[in-house]
């Protein structure tokens, strides 16, 4: 009955079903846990004060033998750029510091329909722009493995809260690696699904053609469980794919022969401790009747393409923040409208403002062909390259991050240097293929993640391979908290 917060999602659901404990027990323990340690982690922005009530209502239903949803008992942390009706959604920005959405994102609605409990909203880089969760208006989150270090980003709160056992699973968003990076830095599993597999309706847009909502959890099975609820066609999002209406992924222990391709450029460019771990992971994988080979993927232009497109779309997506329909208390009376807008919008953080300005630059009619069109061309070149590789191999492997987690405040000065850490993750966003980060080990107590990528809509293969790796790699550590 104690330490319920250490259980996986599967264990929670069966525990509740078998009446080993109540959902209320679980939620109370989680809330206590958050109370105890979140001062050090700072994963949470808002705790849902209805969580306990919801738990009690569900317990009543269970007690009176009424049917409850398949996720009854699960406590989900939601990145604070996912709209939750009647729960504050801030995007870690002053512009939305008091915003309470009038509607639920589709993924939230689907989770609630299965009786999952929203435990709270978790920290991010402002408007999801960043790779360290240092630049939000609520300040940085701290790595559960070593609080002086960054959690990664922008879904830092999502990863940290799962690693620190403050929730069962969480949802994040991944535009250029924003789920996989913190998953790698915090030693949890994090998935960016195929573009269009999960509805973005209700995700506060940063870069529409690149981003996806995805799950983070402590095991691959937990990820699969959540995907079966949130994935699938949504008429509210015209970019969702209609191949899958109701997903039926499985997390099985099936062993299948798989051809791995190790992206050599990405291994060569990483920290030696990381590449060492990658090679030993490959050894583990090979011993299971799978072959691996080195492949080449030229991603020289990938990062430039990613940032061009992301910033361009962001400059447009963030134009709506003018404090008229939603915002904070600042009476517009007396101000001329251009100066009102400009005053309001200067409350964005530095990183956001820079990206908006560069985004405006690359879309100017004189520069559009030079930057935006060429960035799109790079995308189609990469798509060709990746498709070619997937004829050769089934799964592409690389380290998730080229570097180990670093200290908070360390990488602030040089923006390009900061952007370079996204090199390994952006390809999956540009091309739209699914990619997952799996805990692979540690170096000096700092987590290292392994990234697996399959062709689009090949999530089941990705899950099978991830489960295989999880069972042989056997990373079972927990942070000392």
């Amino acid at each position, binding site marked *: 009955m104690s330490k319920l917060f250490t259980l996986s999602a599967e264990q929670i659901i069966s525990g509740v079903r078998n009446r080993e404990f109540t959902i209320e027990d679980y939620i109370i323990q989680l809330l206590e846990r958050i109370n105890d340690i979140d001062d050090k982690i700072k994963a949470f922005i808002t705790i849902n004060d209805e969580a306990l009530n919801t738990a009690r209502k569900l317990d009543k239903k269970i007690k009176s033998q009424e049917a409850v949803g398949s996720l009854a008992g699960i406590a989900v942390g939601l990145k604070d750029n996912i709209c939750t009706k009647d729960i504050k959604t801030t995007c870690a920005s002053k512009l939305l510091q008091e915003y309470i959405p009038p509607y639920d994102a589709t993924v939230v609605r689907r989770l609630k329909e299965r009786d999952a409990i929203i435990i709270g909203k978790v920290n991010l880089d402002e408007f999801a722009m960043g790779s360290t969760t240092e630049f939000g208006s609520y300040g940085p989150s701290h790595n559960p493995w070593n609080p002086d270090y960054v959690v990664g980003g922008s879904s830092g709160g999502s990863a940290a809260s799962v690693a620190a056992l403050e929730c069962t699973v969480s949802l994040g968003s991944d535009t250029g690696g924003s789920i996989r990076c913190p998953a790698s830095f915090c030693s949890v599993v994090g998935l960016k699904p195929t573009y269009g597999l999960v509805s973005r309706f209700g995700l506060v847009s940063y870069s529409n053609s690149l981003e996806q909502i995805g799950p983070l959890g402590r095991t691959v099975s937990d990820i699969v469980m959540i995907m079966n609820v949130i994935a699938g066609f949504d008429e509210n999002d015209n970019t969702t794919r209609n191949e899958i209406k109701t997903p039926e992924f499985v997390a099985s222990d099936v062993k299948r022969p798989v051809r791995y391709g190790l992206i050599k450029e990405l291994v060569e460019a990483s920290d030696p401790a990381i590449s060492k771990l990658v090679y030993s992971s490959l050894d583990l994988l090979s011993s299971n009747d799978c072959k691996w080979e080195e492949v080449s993927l030229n991603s020289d232009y990938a990062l430039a393409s990613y940032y061009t497109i992301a910033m361009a779309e962001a400059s447009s997506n963030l134009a709506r923040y003018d404090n008229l329909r939603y915002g904070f208390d600042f009476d517009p009376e007396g101000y001329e409208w*251009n100066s009102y807008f400009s005053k309001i919008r200067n409350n964005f953080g530095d990183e956001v403002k820079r990206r908006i300005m*560069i985004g405006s630059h690359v879309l100017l009619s004189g520069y559009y062909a030079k930057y935006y069109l060429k960035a799109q061309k790079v995308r189609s070149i990469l798509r060709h390259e990746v498709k070619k590789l997937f004829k050769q191999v089934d799964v592409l492997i690389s380290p998730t991050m080229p570097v180990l987690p670093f200290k908070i405040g360390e990488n602030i000065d040089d923006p390009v240097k900061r952007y370079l850490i996204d090199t390994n993750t952006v390809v999956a966003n540009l091309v739209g293929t699914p990619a997952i980060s799996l805990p692979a080990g540690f170096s000096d107590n700092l987590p290292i993640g392994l990234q697996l990528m399959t062709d689009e809509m090949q999530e089941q293969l990705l899950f099978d391979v991830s489960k295989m790796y999880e069972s042989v790699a056997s990373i079972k550590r927990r942070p000392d908290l």
Partner: protein
Amino acid sequence: MVTIEHVKHLAWLSRLDLTNDEIERYHIEIEKIIGYLDRLDSISLSDIEPRHYERRVSEFRDDIIYDNQTDLSKTTKYSKEGYVKGPRMR
């Protein structure tokens, strides 16, 4: 070469009332970043593939009313008789 004037122009286009300090700081950083993006110059513009996702007209929604009223008074800070209050236009 990204000039300070251009940075000010970008700030205006983006409706950002930057302080002088911000303009100076951002100028250096923006110049660096755009310099990095300039490597795209060596890509040729021939044969860009058309955009990926296509749908037939029948796959889009029907013309049927659904009431999903948003009560703006809940999120708008300043309103008058149901209208959202905004700054003056002159």
